[in-house]
């Protein structure tokens, strides 16, 4: 291992990371990389069984082969705001000095369905925006009080401009990005980092139903970018893969009069 590698591994070894939506496609890859670096993890997800399997996998990858490696789990449906207090409570009691929180869950319904069924529309907003801001608010207050740590949430490039084909998902993610922007400013004086993660389309179970899914980004590469962003001071807003920063810049510059005629 090179010197730089050793230095980085040591820097990350101190981290204790809470992952909200731990069984999501991107989160799985992030957790593996964090575990390999020796981070301790608290995984929150819906399925107790999948969390238990994940716990074994990550413990071995993290080196439980020889030493102690802490991977904790807590099963809860984060879309349900009523369960948030219990999640937060568990984190504070069993994982008290966590320093990083990664919000990685989301849902993507067929856009067409939420155009005709309001309950699907509301569910999309509830999962991707309402519940996300609720749980982030709990964790933000704790980090702010302790004046430490980092809060990261996965939104989407879809939130950068409303498009015909997925504006419901896009508006929820865009709203979340806006929320994070404000939160970042609020937590800045306390020295708490807030990272907005905007992936392009990634090959995960959430996007399997989309056309061209095979050409989407590799979740492992996206996870590498996320882990690197967690380690460093910058950026505040991470586009991954990187090319999306420039693509979205162009997309945002297209005049509305033209954009409304585009069908993508």
């Amino acid at each position, binding site marked *: 291992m090179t010197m730089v590698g050793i230095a980085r591994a040591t820097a990350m070894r101190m981290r204790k990371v809470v992952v909200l939506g731990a069984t999501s496609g991107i989160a799985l890859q992030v957790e593996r990389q964090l575990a390999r670096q020796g981070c301790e993890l608290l995984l929150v997800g819906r399925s107790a069984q999948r969390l238990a399997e994940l716990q074994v996998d990550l413990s*071995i990858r993290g080196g439980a082969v020889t030493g102690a490696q802490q991977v904790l789990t807590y099963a809860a449906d984060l879309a349900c705001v009523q369960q948030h207090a219990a999640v937060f409570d568990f984190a504070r009691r069993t994982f008290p000095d966590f320093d990083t929180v990664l919000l990685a869950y989301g849902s993507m319904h067929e856009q067409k369905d939420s155009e005709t069924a309001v309950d699907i529309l509301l569910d999309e907003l509830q999962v991707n925006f309402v519940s996300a801001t609720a749980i982030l608010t709990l964790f933000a207050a704790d980090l702010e009080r302790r004046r430490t740590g980092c809060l990261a949430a996965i939104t989407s490039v879809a939130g950068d401009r409303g498009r015909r084909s997925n504006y419901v998902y896009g508006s929820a993610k865009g709203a979340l990005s806006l929320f994070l922007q404000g939160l970042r400013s609020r937590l800045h004086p306390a020295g708490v980092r807030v990272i907005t993660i905007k992936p392009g389309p990634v090959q995960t179970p959430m996007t399997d139903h989309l056309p061209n899914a095979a050409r989407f980004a590799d979740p492992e590469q996206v996870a590498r970018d996320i882990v690197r962003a967690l380690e460093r001071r910058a950026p505040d807003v991470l586009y991954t893969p990187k090319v999306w920063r420039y693509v979205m810049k162009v997309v945002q510059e297209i005049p509305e009069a033209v954009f409304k005629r585009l069908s993508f």
Partner: protein
Amino acid sequence: MPEILRDAAPGSLLPYGLGRSYGDSCLNAGRELIDCRRLNRILGFDNSTGMLRCESGVSLSDIVDVFLPHGWFLPVTPGTRFVTVGGAIANDVHGKNHHCAGSFGAHVRQIGLHRSNDGLVFCNSENNSDMLRATIGGLGLTGVIAWADIQLKRVAGPWIDAQSVPFQSLKAFLDLSRESNDRFEYTVAWLDCFAGKNLRGIFFRGNHATGHRSEQGKKQGKKFHPKRGAKLPFALPAWMLNRYSVKTFNKAYYTIHARKKGMAIVPYDSFFYPLDSIRQWNLLYGRQGFLQYQCVIPDTNLEAFEELLDRIARSGMGSCLGVLKQFGSAPPAGMLSFPRPGLTIALDFAMRGERTLKLMQSLDEVVWQSGGALYPAKDARMSPALFEASFPHWRGFVPYIDPTMSSSFWRRVTEAQQ
């Protein structure tokens, strides 16, 4: 998975891993593939015995990354780390240590196999042992491997004590091979296929470095495991690989390696996976791509082997990547295992249409007459007759095929005969 298999039409499915098989054994034209890449969890590991249980989509690369730092390595590894455990079992892959460790399948202690009729079936040497033998080398046709127990191997560290020895005749190669097999765990040779009967090449042999040699590796501070190598961004124009450029490359490669004789401490990845350092290396061959040819010819039939080399040399179509290895005499681990006692040679041929196919047909004749075999994992074109000659007992394997499974390869080589 049980639901997918239960509801599938007969012969409609095939499990798919990282797609590194060169031909159509991992394809199912016009039908469905089951993407197993997300079945990639590690289910358990016993550090006192080295027994690993993992799902079939875990890559060998993953296993090395996780366990080598703790002193465990793959019992057998092919020339690329980007294959899944399921694929390694289904093709019963071999490596540079075949002469002392046999094939990958020899180190699989138990598997969980999803079958459309019977659900999840446990197979080991006591229960369903014949199903285990069918699945090893079974080309994915016996069902979907859910997980496997693999016996990893203790090693001192990531360093290999390696040596390269130039040789200039087939006899010299065989002498080297014979002499090295007892002393070296890993042996393989690179071959200059333009040299014809005046065979020449470089014999690589090595052992896992132990004791002070291993410490030496550390002290030299050599670069250990570069995570991601360079990437070939696009297909090169086809004319760039021609007999002159390849001849020049081969000459340079030979000269360089012939010069650095003697033992050297090298990191495991450059020893086992030289090609993995260039991502998308296959684009070297241009948009037309290439065909691989890997056969084994019995030890007793050296004339046939010389004839084979002669035909390749005369064609002027060989490439830079010729690999030669003498298999050991370990009994086959699976019903359709490819490795068997003899000399195996693997070559790339840039696809130049009819010309390339003709050459390969003429090589087929030699393999056939010698009593040898072709390797299904590398094949896209062998005739049903040659498959029959390579695997005379294949009909005994047929009852173990899961009724929902089929592949382009399997239909191509057997359909006319069933």
